[in-house]
């Protein structure tokens, strides 16, 4: 030891729904440190009033997302060495969501839109919610299965939602994650609500508002392609949409 420890210069947005400002912190730099480690250090060692959210710390729960140096990311799996610019970090709460306090946003509007996009599985064989008699066999090689698999690993972190300009411009827009979820269910051969779901995701607040800019795809930490899923929804709606079968 003996040598002075290298320090990270960390700016953190502090405030609430009424507004806020950036605050400066110095945090010791460590090897293999994640952005979440930095936030935790501030909260444990410097200012216990700092509000933020995490649970699993291994990239499964989707609760630790923040805007890091201008880009939405999952902080528990983001190494400081990859994102710090000259030893500086700037942390803000996710965009496009109401702030509760500091780095914690209210995710309710995000998940309300999943419900609006009919993001719940509705078994074809058991509409009343009973357990079907047998296991459904969905061959892994089928196209529909592969399209469903491509989007199924979403952890609901809100990173894509925070990075989408259309959500910012059109507050009713369902957003990439909810539409990606809808697309996995549209491709799920066991699901019985295809028609209602397509109707729910059509129109100016649904998939047709998307400009295919692909920033959702670029930001998604799970490597999911919501932009491609939305294009799939648009294709599925082309003819039914023409005929006025959906609103």
């Amino acid at each position, binding site marked *: 030891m003996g040598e002075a420890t290298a320090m990270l210069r960390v700016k953190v947005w502090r405030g609430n729904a009424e507004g806020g400002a950036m605050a400066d912190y110095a945090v010791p730099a460590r090897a293999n440190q994640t952005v979440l480690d930095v936030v935790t250090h501030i909260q444990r060692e410097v200012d216990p009033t700092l509000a933020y959210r995490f649970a699993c710390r291994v990239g499964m729960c989707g609760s630790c997302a923040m805007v890091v140096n201008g880009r939405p990311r999952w902080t528990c799996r983001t190494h400081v060495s990859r994102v710090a610019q000259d030893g500086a970090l700037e942390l803000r709460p996710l965009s496009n969501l109401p702030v509760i306090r500091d780095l914690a946003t209210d995710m309710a509007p995000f998940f309300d839109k999943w419900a609006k996009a009919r993001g719940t599985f509705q078994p074809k064989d058991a509409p009343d919610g009973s357990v079907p008699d047998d296991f459904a066999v969905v061959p892994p090689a089928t196209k529909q299965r592969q399209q469903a698999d491509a989007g199924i690993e979403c952890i609901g972190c809100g990173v894509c939602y925070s990075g989408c300009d259309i959500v910012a411009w*059109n507050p009713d827009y369902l957003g990439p994650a909810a539409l990606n979820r809808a697309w996995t269910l549209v491709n799920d051969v066991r699901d019985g609500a295809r028609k209602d779901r397509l109707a729910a995701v059509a129109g*100016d607040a649904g998939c*047709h508002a998307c400009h295919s800019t692909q920033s959702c795809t670029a930001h998604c930490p799970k490597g999911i392609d919501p932009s491609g899923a939305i294009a799939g929804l648009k294709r599925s709606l082309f003819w039914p949409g*023409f005929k*006025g079968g959906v609103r």
Partner: protein
Amino acid sequence: MNGVQLWAVQRATAMVLALAVVVHLVTILVAVRGGLSAAEIIGRTRGNWAWLGFYSVFALAAGLHGAIGLRAIAAEWAGWRGRGYDLAWIGIALLTAAFGIRAAWGLYSA
């Protein structure tokens, strides 16, 4: 028309425009070889049904495509949303198309 139908119309007109613009440019390149005079143009367009038909479809596609695109921009940037605005945009689409078709008609009947 609702948002989904307007979107479908915009997609369909995009395909028409992709083809029409190519035909249009090739026609110009071929037509101007060796100079071009007003009399020469009118000589080709007067009474030419195929020509009138092509440019009427072109003008209609361009009018619809442009106005539906502007509708999306106005909704996002100015918050102009709703039935009233939609009807206004369809009006603007048809008006723009009418100007184009009127011009084509002028050369057809010259």
